[in-house]
């Protein structure tokens, strides 16, 4: 019987139409590998691309492959850069990407970047190169100033979204707000909460007046209550609001205006900011609480005790809550009884060094897990935890997809039993079958890794600190976690044996980070030799500090052979920081002197 290959007779347009139903980039990646014809059709019709590691592919190649690109998401530095473990000037430069896109992808509308270094010139180019540009989202980035923002505001005529989350932005004055077009803007979402400097309040008010589509507005600390009230009056249909400084006198006009304005906000679903908030201003917020799905109080250390309890009791539809541990176990217990729809909880430490009395403990977490069965995402900093609590929590909430627990003191055992937390975290991986992201802490032996390797089959990202006994720990994870994409380890006794236990595994992962572990130069060299498709990068701390001192004019160069000491023949030297990632781009050309690619 003659078998017909029916697919060959489909016109390209039809295949493209079929592909248009594939929205997830995993699926699009898969179909592109079927045959040359499909690769071509897929790449020309691809609209969104996600690059989880900006060094996994050269920008030119990515941009040339997808000329019809509308939306690009990029991540730069390793995650531990958030905690100062990666020296400055390490890399993650946005420039080459924006330049490549400018050459090949004129239809670009959205650019999302995380942990990348962006300059004002880059933003300038962005404004000029992409006439349809609509959305810029920068998370945890640095290297630019308010001048760069002005360039974007000025040049991107159809800008809909400017979302700045926790970036380090140099303040060069408040003029950037004036740079938006004089006519009506198309702004839907504007978030400048992370800006540290002053804001021209009149400009802000005028901007809001001429932005009729505004749904999300997050102000920075410099915006006082008077302005906030005026703004809310102007946009009663706001869905997402980040307040400025919430300080007002009881009998002031500003306070009264705020109260009235907030009462009109029927569509408000998400609230954040609360800088410097006084208990009085918290009262003004009550009328909107009943419809809130998201609440971020994590920058409001003065909201605690009864004030917090009174507020949260109104928030019966809350799905996402970010707070400081100053709300205490008592506060969390009230959350558990009021917020039955809660899905995501983040409890940040208000006292980084755990020097004061315990604020939240296992009690608060158990209460939440009992009261909020829909909980699936947790970030919890605490001074105290027990295995028994973790076991209870894992049974109450089997739907966790993200579970991150940070017991503030490294290597602390369970105070009730003096045992490590192997069983507690083991219970989490056993009971929560959908766990994708996991961070563990406290005293931990190899046993917890045995459990993770055995049970955490859906796990994609694992963060480990101050844990384990031997190489076997890391090996359990590498062997068992089939879906692992990112593994980051610090201060654990894993050595070359663990690093080399399963070298082909790293090709299936995005990246591996190891710092302050027990690996040697010999081991890293062996890995690099065996796996040429990986970049094996070593960060030389001393060199990095020298470079910084040079840049600051504190030190002089005494030798030109910067890399010489890397290679002085002693391969038994311990490697302080290792970053390994798969790439088709080869060793990176922008590596600073203190990064050595083996």
């Amino acid at each position, binding site marked *: 019987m003659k078998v017909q290959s029916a697919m060959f007779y489909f016109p390209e347009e039809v295949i493209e139409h079929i592909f248009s139903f594939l929205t997830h980039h995993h699926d699009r990646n898969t179909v592109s590998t079927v045959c040359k014809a499909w690769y071509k059709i897929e790449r020309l019709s691809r609209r969104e691309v996600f690059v989880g590691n900006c060094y996994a592919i050269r920008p030119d190649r990515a941009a040339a492959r997808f000329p019809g690109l509308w939306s690009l998401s990029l991540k730069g530095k390793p995650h531990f850069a958030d905690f100062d473990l990666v020296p400055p000037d390490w890399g993650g430069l946005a420039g080459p990407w924006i330049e490549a896109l400018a050459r090949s992808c004129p239809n670009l509308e959205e650019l999302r970047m995380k942990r990348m270094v962006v300059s004002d010139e880059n933003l300038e180019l962005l404004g000029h190169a992409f006439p349809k540009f609509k959305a810029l989202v920068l998370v945890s980035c640095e290297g630019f100033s308010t001048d760069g923002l002005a360039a974007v505001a000025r040049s991107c005529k159809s800008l809909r979204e400017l979302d700045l989350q926790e970036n380090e932005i140099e303040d060069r004055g408040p003029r950037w707000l004036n740079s938006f077009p004089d006519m009506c803007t198309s702004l839907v979402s504007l978030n400048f909460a992370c800006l540290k400097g002053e804001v021209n309040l009149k400009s802000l008010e005028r901007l809001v007046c001429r932005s009729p589509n505004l749904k999300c507005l997050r102000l920075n600390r410099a915006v006082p209550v008077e302005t906030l009230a005026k703004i809310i009056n102007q946009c009663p249909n706001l869905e997402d609001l980040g307040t400025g400084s919430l300080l007002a006198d009881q009998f002031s006009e500003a306070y009264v205006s705020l109260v009235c304005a907030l009462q009109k906000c029927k569509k408000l679903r998400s609230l954040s900011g609360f800088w410097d908030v006084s208990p009085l201003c918290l009262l003004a917020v009550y009328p909107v609480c009943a419809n809130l799905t998201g609440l971020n109080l994590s920058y409001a250390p003065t909201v605690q005790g009864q004030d917090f309890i009174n507020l949260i009791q109104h928030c019966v539809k809350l799905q996402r809550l970010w707070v400081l541990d100053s709300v205490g176990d008592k506060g969390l217990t009230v959350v558990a009884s009021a917020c039955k729809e809660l899905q995501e909880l983040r409890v940040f*430490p208000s006292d980084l060094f755990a020097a004061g009395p315990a604020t939240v403990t296992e009690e608060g977490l158990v209460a939440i897990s009992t009261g909020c069965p829909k909980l699936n995402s947790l970030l919890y900093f605490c001074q105290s935890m027990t295995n028994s609590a973790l076991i209870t929590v894992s049974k109450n909430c089997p739907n966790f997809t993200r579970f991150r627990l940070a017991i503030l003191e490294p290597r602390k055992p369970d105070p009730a039993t003096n045992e490590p937390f192997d069983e507690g975290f083991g219970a989490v991986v056993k009971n929560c079958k959908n766990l994708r992201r996991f961070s563990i802490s406290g005293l931990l032996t190899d046993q917890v890794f045995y459990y993770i390797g055995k049970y955490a089959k859906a796990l994609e990202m694992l963060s480990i600190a101050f844990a384990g006994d031997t190489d076997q720990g890391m090996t359990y994870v590498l062997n068992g976690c089939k879906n692992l994409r990112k593994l980051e380890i610090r201060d654990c006794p894993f050595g070359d044996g663990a690093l080399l236990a399963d070298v082909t595994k790293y090709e299936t992962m995005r990246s591996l980070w190891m710092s302050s572990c027990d690996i040697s130069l010999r081991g890293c060299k062996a890995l690099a030799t065996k796996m040429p498709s990986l970049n094996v990068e070593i960060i030389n701390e001393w060199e990095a500090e020298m470079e910084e001192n040079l840049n600051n004019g504190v030190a002089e160069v005494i030798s030109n052979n910067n890399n010489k000491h890397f290679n002085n023949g002693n391969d038994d030297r311990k490697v302080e920081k290792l970053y390994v990632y798969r790439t088709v781009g080869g060793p990176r050309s922008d590596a600073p002197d203190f990064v050595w690619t083996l």
Partner: protein
Amino acid sequence: MSVETERSSTESEVSGLDYEETALTLRLPGGTSRVAGSELDRKRGFSETVELGLGSGAPVGTRGVASTDDQSDESPESQASVAEKPPAPKARVVGWPPVRSFRKNVMKSCKLVKVAVDGAPYLRKVDLEAYTGYHQLLTALQEMFSCFTIRNYPDEERKLVDPVNGTEYVPTYEDKEGDWMLVGDVPWKMFVESCKRVRLMKSSEAVNLAPRAQQS
């Protein structure tokens, strides 16, 4: 239960560069001196700091570090007094707890102090950095315990009055040296820098409190 091998290369990161090691040559930190023994010594130092700093009930013995055992055995009084004192500042580990630098910087710029009112059942906290001067602070205090109104006296003393029973309250604060002072005596910036906590004291009790006087 195995005694965990404690690894802490954080000591050098905490104290900055290990200058002895890098003084004369350009080489990787640690270099050839990374011998197990010396590492272990460094680690002991780290765990000692942490253990003593805790003053907690956790038996030091389980850590298997001999030196701390000796210390806990020979002076029960000192251990008790360690437990009572506020924990000594712990060794700062780079990048721990895992909080984004942005958030850390925001928190650093806070100056939180507790506010207590004689007779009131609960404390509040205020961020002194949020206010620009005494008037703002007093207004905020007034609102917090909103039964008060501010009564201005001609000699610039500021008192808070509870209209229900007419009791006057005087805002006082404890400074770095542990002395209780009247709020308003020193320039605002100096106050923000030295204030540890605030107490609204009943006027009757504050009689003995003169500017910069010691509490008897």
